[in-house]
C-alpha cells in the first residue's frame, strides 16, 4: 500500500489559531483543505512537511453568501447552492466537469484554487522519480520539460475554479500574520510552477468574492480533456463578456492549463472590446488566443495539439456567450 509519511496534524478552530500554528511550525507545514491534492502528493513523497494544519474545523472559512464563497467550502456545497448558481450559472458546468462527485464532496474551493501544479515528471512516486530522474520541483537539478531550466518550473496549472472567478472579476481575501488583504484574483498567480502565486506561506484564503455586477456578465468555461470525469484539464478557456446588443462592451479571457498559472489574456481581450461578436471576430479572437498559448510537454497530449485546441475552446466559449447552442461532442449532448 502507499503509506502517508508521518506528520503532526493540527486542528485549529479559527484562522488566527491556524496562523499561530503555522508560525510555530518552523520545520515546515502545509495547510490541509479537503486533502484530495495534498495527501496524494504526500503519498508520493512530494515536498512533504512535518506539520499539517487542517482547516476543516474553521467556521469562518465555511461561509457562503451573496457572491462570497469561503475558502473551506466544498465544491459539492457550491454545486448545491441554488442561489449562487442562479447568479453565476457558469459554475454549474464548471463544477459538473470538475474531477468527480466523490472528489468534489471533499475538495474545497481554496484547495482547487491552490491545486499544486502538475507534470508528467513530477506526479510520480518516489520510486518512479528515482528511476526516471528527479525534476526541479522535487529535489532535482533542472526542469525535465524544458531542459536546462534551473530556475523555473514548467509544471501545469490544473485548477478549474480560478479562471472562472478571474473572468468574473473575482477578488480574494487572504488572512495572514500581518492581517487581512484583498487582491484581484487575476493578480494572485506568479508564473513559476514552484512559486505559483503571491500568497505568503502562512496566509489563508478566507474567501473568494464576486462583485455584484458580475451577475450580469455572460460567461463560459470550456474544458478540454480526454475523459469527462476525473481528469484535470489538458487545457481550458474561460471567457466573460458584457454585451451591448451584438457589441462587446467588456471582455475577459483566461487561457487555463497551458502554463504554470491561468493566463490572464488582457491584451487580446482589450483588442476586441467594442467589436461586434461576429463569426469573424470569434475566429480572430480564437486565433489570437491560440497563438498566445505556449503549452509545453507537461501533460498527456502533445503541446501542438493543445495549442490548437485553445483556439477551438475559445471559439466555443465565445459562441456560448453569444447565445449559440454549443455542441460538445465529447459528451454527445447539447450544452
Amino acid at each position, binding site marked *: *500500500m*502507499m*503509506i502517508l509519511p*508521518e506528520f503532526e496534524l493540527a486542528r485549529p478552530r479559527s484562522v488566527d489559531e491556524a496562523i499561530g500554528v503555522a508560525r510555530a511550525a518552523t520545520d515546515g507545514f502545509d495547510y490541509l483543505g479537503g486533502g484530495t491534492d495534498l495527501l496524494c502528493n504526500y503519498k508520493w513523497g512530494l515536498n512533504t512537511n512535518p506539520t499539517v494544519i487542517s482547516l476543516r474545523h474553521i467556521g469562518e472559512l465555511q461561509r457562503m453568501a451573496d457572491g462570497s464563497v469561503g475558502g473551506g467550502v466544498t465544491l459539492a456545497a457550491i454545486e448545491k447552492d441554488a442561489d449562487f448558481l442562479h447568479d453565476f450559472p457558469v459554475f454549474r458546468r464548471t463544477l459538473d466537469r470538475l474531477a468527480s462527485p466523490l472528489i468534489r464532496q471533499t475538495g474545497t474551493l481554496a484547495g482547487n484554487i491552490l491545486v499544486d501544479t502538475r507534470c*508528467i515528471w513530477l*506526479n*510520480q*512516486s518516489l*520510486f*518512479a522519480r*528515482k*528511476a*526516471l530522474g528527479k525534476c526541479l520541483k522535487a529535489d532535482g537539478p533542472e526542469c525535465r520539460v524544458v531542459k536546462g531550466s534551473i530556475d523555473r518550473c514548467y509544471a501545469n496549472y490544473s485548477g478549474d475554479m480560478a479562471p472562472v472567478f478571474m473572468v468574473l472579476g473575482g477578488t480574494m481575501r487572504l488572512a495572514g500574520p500581518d492581517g487581512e488583504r484583498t487582491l484581484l484574483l487575476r493578480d494572485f498567480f506568479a508564473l513559476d510552477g514552484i512559486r505559483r502565486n503571491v500568497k505568503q506561506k502562512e496566509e489563508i484564503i478566507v474567501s473568494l468574492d464576486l462583485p455584484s455586477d458580475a451577475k450580469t456578465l455572460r460567461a463560459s468555461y470550456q474544458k*478540454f480533456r*480526454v*475523459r*469527462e*470525469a*476525473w*481528469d*484535470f484539464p489538458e487545457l481550458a478557456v474561460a471567457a466573460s463578456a458584457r454585451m451591448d446588443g451584438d457589441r462587446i462592451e467588456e471582455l475577459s479571457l483566461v487561457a487555463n492549463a497551458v502554463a504554470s498559472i491561468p493566463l490572464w489574456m488582457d491584451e487580446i481581450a482589450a483588442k476586441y472590446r467594442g467589436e461586434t461578436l461576429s463569426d469573424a471576430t470569434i475566429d480572430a479572437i480564437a486565433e489570437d488566443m491560440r497563438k498566445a498559448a505556449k503549452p509545453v510537454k507537461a501533460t*498527456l*497530449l*502533445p503541446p*501542438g*495539439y493543445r495549442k*490548437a*485546441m485553445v483556439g*477551438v475552446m475559445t*471559439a*466555443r466559449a465565445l459562441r456560448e456567450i453569444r447565445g449559440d447552442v454549443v455542441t*460538445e*461532442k*465529447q*459528451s*454527445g449532448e447539447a450544452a
Partner: protein
Amino acid sequence: MTQEFTVVGSRQPLVDSWKKVTGQAVYGDDVRFPNTLYARLLRSTLPHAKILRIDASRAEALPGVRAVVTGADAPAKFGVLPISQDEEALATDKVRYVGDCVAAVAADDEATAAKAIEMIEVVYEKLPEYFTTDEGLVPVEEPIHEWTVDGSNTQKRVDQHFGDMDKAIADAAVAPSGFFKFIGVGHAFTEPHAVTAVPESDGRLSLYTPTQVPHYVHRALARVMDMPMHRVRIFRTAVGGGFGGKSDPFPHEMATCLLARKVQRPVRLTFDREEIFLTNRGRHPGTVDVQIAFDKDGKILGLDTTAIIDGGAFASFGVVTTYYNGVLSQGPYKIPNFRYSGRRVYTNKAPCGAMRGHGAVNSRYGIESVIDMACEELAIDPIELRLKNVLEPYSKTTNEFRITSNGIVECLERVRDETDWISKKGHLPFGKGIGVSCGFFISGSALPIHKTRTPQSTVHLQIDVDGGITAHSQGAEIGQGSDTVIAIAVAEVLGVPMDFVRVRSADSDTAPLDLGAYSSRGCFMIGNAAREAALVIREKLSRAAGRLTGADPNDFTFADATLNCASDPSTHVSYFEALTEALADNGALIAKGWYQSPRMGGTFKGAGAGLAPAYSFNACVAEVDVDLETGLIKCTAMALAHDCGRALNRLAVEGQIEGCMHMGLGQALLEEMRYDRGRITNPNLLDYKVLSPFETPAMKVIIVESEDKEGPFGAKEAGEGPLIPVLPALGNAVYNAVGYRSMELPIRPEKVFDHIRRLRKTDAGLTKTWEQNVR
C-alpha cells in the same frame, strides 16, 4: 431451443454476489492472522544491470525488522509455462527491468518495512538496455536471458505456411495490406495483488492469494520453496478482477512465503497501484503486418501476417501469445492459404502476458481493418463480404482446428438488423460513422500447459442428511461466475433450487484439480465436470426412488425438488425422500465428474496452439460521432452479438459482454502504458485512462445460442471473445465517419484532428472529399 431447462438460461445473480456487495467477501487484503508481519519489496530502478553486491545489514539492524530475503534464498527458476521458466523469486545475478524484485523485508509494520527497503544497499553494474523489438531481433551484446535465439533477444519464433500464399496474392483481384502498431495495455483490475503467507504448525506452508491459477501457483511455489506439493496449500481469496493479470505465479508470492518460512510468522504483502503496473503481464505492445488476398467476389484467398510482439523482461505466457497472434486468425473466416511469422522479443520493460482476448486482439484489429479496405476496393458491403467468407459449423480450418457449433451468420445478421445498418451505412453525415467487425476465440485450450493425462477439471459433490449439495472444485472464481456455473449445472441436473448448492472452490486441500481461470476454459470445462458429477448423484437418487416406488429408476425426471415418474404422473417422491433412502446403509452421497478435451488437431509443429474443444464467434457494430473541431471520438452506440453456445446464466453473459465492450473501447480510445527509456510514466489510474461512464456508449447485447454439442448444456465461452471485435469495429466506424484509418491503437484525437485539418486545406469542402474518397 431443443431442450427445456429450469435453471439454465435464467438470469441469476452470481452466488457470491451478496457477500461481495455487502463487504463480507474476503479479498487478498482482508485476510487476517494473529502476529502477522508486513512485507515490502525492494525493486530495481535500473532497466538492466548486473547485481554485484547486496548489503542488507543496515536494514536488518533497524528495530522492528524481522527478516530480509534476497535471491540467494531461493534461486530456483519458475514460470507459468514449463517450457519457459525464466523467473526468480528475487533477482539473483541481474535485474531485467525497472520494477524487478531484488529483496524483501518483513517488519512489524508496513512503514518500518518500507523504511528498511530504503536501507538495503545494492551495487549494480549497468548493462546495455533494450527497449524496442527492433533492437532485440538481431544479436546483441548482452541478451536479457541466456537461452534466446542466436544471441538476440528473440524468445520465440513461429513460422507457419499452409497452401500457397504467394499464388493467392498473385491470383487476387485485390490484396490490401496494413502495418499496424499497438501500445501495451494493462488489465486495470480493481483489487491490487495482496497475499498472506502462513507457516502452519505442522510444518506446511499456506499461501492466501487472489490468483486466477491456484494450481500453477501451487506447482511453482513448491518448486521455489523446495517443498513437496502436499506440504504446500494454496487458498484462493476472493479475486477483485483478473482479466489475465493474475494468471501467473508471481515473484511476490514466492518472496512473501520465503519471509514467512524464515521468521515462522504469517507475512502479508499488499501492492500499491504502481506495483501492479510494474508487475504487468498485460497485452503485448507490438506490430502486426497483414495482407489479405480476395477474389473479385470478395472471397478470401489467403491471409499473410507477421506479428512482432514486445514481451518485456520475462516469458510469462509469451510462447502461447506468439502462436495466438497468428493461429487465431484462422477463424471466423475460411482462410484457404495462410502464412504466419511471429516473433516475441525480450525487452527491459515490465513483462507482458495474458490479457482478456489473449493474443487475438491486436491481430484482429489488423485483419478486420484490412477487410474493411477490401470492402471499399471491391465496393461490397462489409457485412455482406464477411458473410461470404464465414466458416461452416462442424467443419475444419486450414490449420486443422476442429470447428463445432458456429453462430457467426446469426451474429452478423442480427447486428446488421438490430442497428439499422443498411439505412445507416453510406448515408451518415460527415463526422458520423458506423463500422463492423467479427471475432473468434477459443473456449478453453484443448491441451493443458503441463503434459498430463489428469483431467483438466474435476468436480466433487457431497450430499448428507441436510440435503445440501457441497460442490468442490479448484475452478477459480474471479468474478466471472464459475462458482455459479457449478451451482447452475448441479441444480439443473438434480432439479433443486440453486440455494441447495454450496460451492467450495478456494482451498487446494479440499478442491479437486482444475487448471484455473484462463483461456476462457471455465464454463466449458468446469461446467461439464459439474454436470457429469451431478448425473452420478442423479443416478443414485433415481435408484433410491425406484426402490421406494417400484418404478423404473430410469423413468424419473427431476424438478422442483421432486422426482416424478414420467410414465405414471401419480408416482413421485420428494428429493428428501429419495435422498433419505439413498443414504440408508450407505452414508453421504459422493460423486465425481471430470472433463478432458478429446484428442484433436494436426501433427505439424505448433499444431496444438489454439486448439480448443469449441470456439466462440461474434460480430460487433460500432457507431461513432467524431468532433470535427477537436478530433475527439465519441462511441455513441455499440451492438455486439456473441455466440456463446447457450447462455447458462443470461445475466452473467450480458455482464461479460458489456465488460468486454468497455475494456475493448478503452484500448481503442485511451488506454496505453507509456514508457520513457524503460520506465513506466503513467502507473496510476489517473494517467492510465480507463473509460469513465461518460465515454461508455449505449450498449446492445445480443446473445446467440448455437447449442454446442460438447459444451455443458450447449454452452461455450463468453468472457473474452466479445472483446475482440470491439476495437476494429470502432476503428472501421472512425474511418467511415471521417476517412481516417488509424494504423495504431489507441486512436489518437490529435491525429484525427490533423487528418481533418488536412482535408480542410486540400479540398474545397469536407463533404466533397468525403463523397469522392471515402464512400
